[in-house]
């Protein structure tokens, strides 16, 4: 399973590789490798804590504290998902330019399962605050 919601995405400004000279293609491939290295260091700095258990929301004070926690968790998820998705697109662009095997590369950095669990937990906690506010 790919981490990308839209599989036709590309970071390439050129529409087709058929218009590219070998040296232009090589230059873009170098740029892609450089970008991938920089993104990898960004992704690597993220802490992968075990998801915490859900907190019962029974007062405004608790709702405010839980909201703050959720906001930080959601921001970390957006950061992580964005960096991983861009890396995946860059790898796909590399495949397109080189003609390498797709399967060989797409299975290397697939963390969407992890992110999906995090999103589900954030959603469950969000529902708990929403429900408390409705009561």
């Amino acid at each position, binding site marked *: 399973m790919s981490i990308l919601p839209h599989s036709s995405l590309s970071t390439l400004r050129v529409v087709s590789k058929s218009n590219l000279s070998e040296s232009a293609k090589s230059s873009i491939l170098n740029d892609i490798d450089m970008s991938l290295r920089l993104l990898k260091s960004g992704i690597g700095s993220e802490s992968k804590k075990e998801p915490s258990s859900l907190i019962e929301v029974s007062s405004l004070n608790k709702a405010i504290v839980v909201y703050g926690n959720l906001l930080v968790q*959601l921001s970390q998820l957006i950061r992580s998902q964005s960096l991983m998705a861009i890396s995946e697109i860059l790898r796909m662009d590399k495949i397109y330019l080189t003609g390498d095997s797709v399967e060989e590369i797409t299975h290397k950095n697939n963390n969407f399962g992890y992110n999906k669990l995090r999103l589900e937990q954030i959603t469950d906690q969000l529902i708990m*605050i929403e429900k408390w506010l409705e009561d």
Partner: protein
Amino acid sequence: MVGGLKMGFAWWMDSSEISANSFFKFLPRKHILNLDILSNSEVKMIEERILSSGDTISKQSDNSELFRLRELQKDIILNDMVLCVEQSFMNSKQLKIPHSEDLLPTELIEVAQRMIELRKKLVKRIGNFND
């Protein structure tokens, strides 16, 4: 309430115009140079003070300060993402940064929008308790 606290609370708490795109710093955009420094121990301290109030509504200054600090924390995390992406693409004129709307699953964007709605409701609730 006409006190400075209430007014000070209101000017940055108005979320009627906030979109997920601006609040969660959707790409592409430029990173912000000088964000405030965050103290995690201060966040913990205020959280403990708020929670120790139990069901009694805690001081508005604590509530608004926790909101401010958590949103600063959000901004630092997302600004770091923007900087990382900016640096990854800055050396190439042949590559372009994709848009967050294309990078993030629909369900994640929906949760981001719900968080903003939740923020509005919480701000309103805090305001009602302090009128």
